[in-house]
């Protein structure tokens, strides 16, 4: 057990890598009633083509990581929610592009609940019947998102940008793709990606670190996992250009919704450099078009945007893109105005005072985020998988420079890499 003291944040983090490869982190939060734990595999919707060292290529249907997440909750003795409920734990899971996380939060029976979490995720139970039954449930989940304009415009934009990379597919797949999922494909994914060496356990809350680690050590020592080599993820070569400059989706909405974004060239940095780039681009976007900027205010006063206007940036080793936008009465005009307002800044750069203000703002929201055990566990894991450290972001923020921000600004706003997705009613 290695304690890592983070003086500036007044936190102490414990870390241990078990013999089977599982990495465990424990962050005690004295005085907290709650304990929150996530058990995460480095396996998400984009991992649909892979190979184990020495093995054969495996290609799986779109949406399988998410399907697997649903099915893990079923155990031979029934639904695992019941076991959690008996110990007053609220359990859940989510699947993203790159990872699947299982979690619970509880204020009592914490060690029992932790054992339940680890055991159910390490005990797959799929039958032909329970796999078929799930298709109806996930089918309704997919239909729920089909009616959601935010979701449709968000994923519409990504699918317009990317031509080959599986980040373009919907996380849950489609009713058609999930129809090809059976228990064999589920087991094959499970055995590849749920090996302890591909997983991370994070426990945060009012717990004793040594007790948590001892429980996990004993639990893991009693199970056997065949040794496993590295997983090779076979991602297709993504062309530099966006697939489609503009995509229109028809849905009944009160006002059109437009998201636009820039697809960055692939082959971006990895590890700590990737994390730095993520922070820097986010600060850059916020300095340029965040809610305290003159561009934002101008667009708002011209009634081209509403409070829904926002921006985000997603980066992974083989894709990186921004998403900017929200509701607007006139998508074409909004895009034209954004370009007009941004052009001069691309030449002159953002002002030092604006950059400093944004940096403070982002440091503030970072510290606010550390109040939340949920956010700590989820963000820590996400950044860890990317090769960085959530608790080292303060010095990273402080080391950003104006030159760096301005050079990222010019690099990112390359109009030839722009894609747009508009959701509008048939009559708009």
């Amino acid at each position: 057990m290695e304690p890592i003291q983070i003086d500036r944040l007044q936190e102490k983090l414990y870390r241990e890598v078990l013999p089977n490869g599982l990495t465990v982190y424990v962050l005690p939060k004295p005085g907290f009633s709650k304990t929150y734990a996530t058990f995460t595999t480095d396996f998400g919707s984009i991992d649909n083509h892979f190979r184990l060292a020495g093995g054969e290529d495996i290609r799986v249907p779109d949406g399988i990581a998410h399907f697997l997440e649903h099915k893990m909750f079923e155990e031979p003795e029934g639904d695992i929610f019941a076991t959690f409920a008996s110990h007053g734990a609220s359990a859940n899971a989510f699947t993203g592009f790159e990872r699947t996380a299982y979690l619970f939060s509880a204020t009592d029976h914490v060690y029992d609940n932790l054992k339940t979490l680890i055991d159910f995720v390490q005990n797959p139970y799929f039958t032909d019947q329970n796999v078929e039954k799930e298709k109806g449930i996930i089918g309704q989940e997919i239909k729920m998102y089909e009616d959601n304009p935010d979701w449709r415009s968000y994923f519409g934009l990504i699918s317009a940008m990317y031509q080959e990379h599986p980040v373009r597919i919907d996380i849950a797949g489609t009713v058609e793709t999930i129809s090809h999922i059976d228990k064999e494909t589920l087991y094959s994914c499970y055995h590849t990606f749920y090996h302890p060496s591909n997983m991370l356990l994070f426990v945060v809350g009012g717990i004793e670190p040594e007790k948590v680690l001892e429980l996990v050590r004993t639990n893991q020592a009693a199970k056997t996992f065949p040794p496993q080599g590295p997983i090779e993820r076979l991602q297709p070569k993504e062309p530099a250009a966006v697939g489609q400059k503009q995509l229109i989706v028809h849905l009944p909405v009160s006002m059109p919704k437009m998201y636009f974004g820039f697809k960055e060239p692939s082959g971006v940095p990895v590890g700590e450099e990737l994390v730095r780039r993520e922070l820097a681009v986010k600060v850059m976007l916020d300095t340029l078009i965040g809610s305290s900027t003159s561009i934002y205010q101008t667009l708002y006063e011209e009634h081209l945007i509403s409070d829904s206007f926002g921006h985000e940036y997603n980066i992974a080793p083989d894709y990186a893109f921004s998403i900017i936008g929200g509701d607007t009465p006139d998508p074409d005009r909004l895009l034209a105005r954004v370009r007009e307002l941004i052009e001069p800044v691309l030449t002159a750069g953002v002002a030092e005072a604006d950059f400093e203000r944004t940096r403070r703002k982002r440091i503030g929201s970072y510290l606010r985020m550390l109040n939340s055990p949920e956010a700590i566990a989820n963000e820590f894991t996400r950044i860890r998988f990317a090769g960085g450290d959530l608790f080292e972001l303060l010095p990273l923020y402080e080391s950003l420079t104006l030159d760096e921000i301005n050079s990222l600004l010019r690099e990112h706003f390359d109009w030839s890499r722009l894609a747009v997705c508009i959701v509008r009613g048939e009559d708009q």
Partner: protein
Amino acid sequence: MTEASFQRTAVGNVRLHVLPTDRFKTYAVALYIGSPLREDRVTRNALAPFVLRRGTKTYPTTQLFREKQADLYGAGFGFDVYKRGDYQLVQFQLDIVDDKYVSESDSLLRQGLHFLGEAVTKPALENGHFLDRYVQDEKETVRKRLEAIVNDKIRYAAERCMEEMCKHEPYRLHPLGKIADLASLTSDELYNNYIEWLKESPMDLYIVGNTTLDEVKAYVEEAFAFPERASSPDYVRAIPTKKEGSVNTVVEKLDVSQGKLNMGLRCDVTYADDRYPAALMYNGILGAFPHSKLFLNVREKASLAYYAASRYDGHKGILTIQSGIEVANYEQACAIIQEQLEEMRAGKISETELTQTRAMITNQLREGNDSAFDRIAFDFNTVLSGKKRTPEEIAEAITRVTTDEIRQFAETVQLDTIYFLRDRKED
């Protein structure tokens, strides 16, 4: 379960509630301003916070105001307008970092309270009223928000169900008001309404963080300029409305791929009632959790839905049920849900359901202790209902609720409205 409790005083007839603790990295500040839901006031009250966030005396332009907010380490400033019982609540909120994590000479809590005080009580004015330009912009913003409700079909169906069920009560009103009332409102009328609102409404200011009651009181006295308030009004509890006549079924058609089935039910138990813990248990067993009857029977057994849940509004005495289903499965889903309601009425509740639900509710109550804003929201229930309850007391009461008490409560639950949002295709 808790290490300390709120300390209270008043400043100018505004109730002040302070919870000193060093557990969080920020100071959490919330100001609640309530007013009875009234047709002639609801839109005006709702507009107030929108106009206030546009500029203040010291920061007259929106950009200056937001720059100041960013300078305060991105103080999480925001507001929300919502309903609790028959009240419209406007809640301002501020989340600002504790100075000890950053290098700052002047207290950030002090600066934060000055910022909030400016925003709420010292607006930018022209000719003795709000700026016309801000008022026009924000009328537009509120109109767009009201129109946008239909975009989120889950929320739209829930709100339509309540609107139908409560069509003869103030509760039918949307907390943001009515689109039809927006156009004719003038800056002058809005400003006068705002002053009245500040003078007459019950107001509660909460602060949780590394501070003391005395420190906060001093800051609030210098930061806020409330108009003269004659008294410190309390919230008045409404008596739950009884169900009359047969079940009202409403079917609405829109271009949707999934049907939304919502039900509204009435009960005569609210937060202050001795039977409140039984009502919580009823809702928990019926549909609040993934081990509940609705999730198990509609989703897991029949595979009809991704979500099927119930919610209990203890300030209004209303239960709601919501699920997203295939349009063709409407009858089957309705039948399964009604069977679960019937089971509750018959007291068909297993020992396991009781134990699991108790454990889950207790956990929810305890988890609230770890979030400053949850602590505030929980405490505010006492202000709103006039009934002092602590999470510990509710948890304790939950352990004593019997199946028979839940069954007795179930007898008071009346299905009032079934609302179904479906596609435009014919059956």
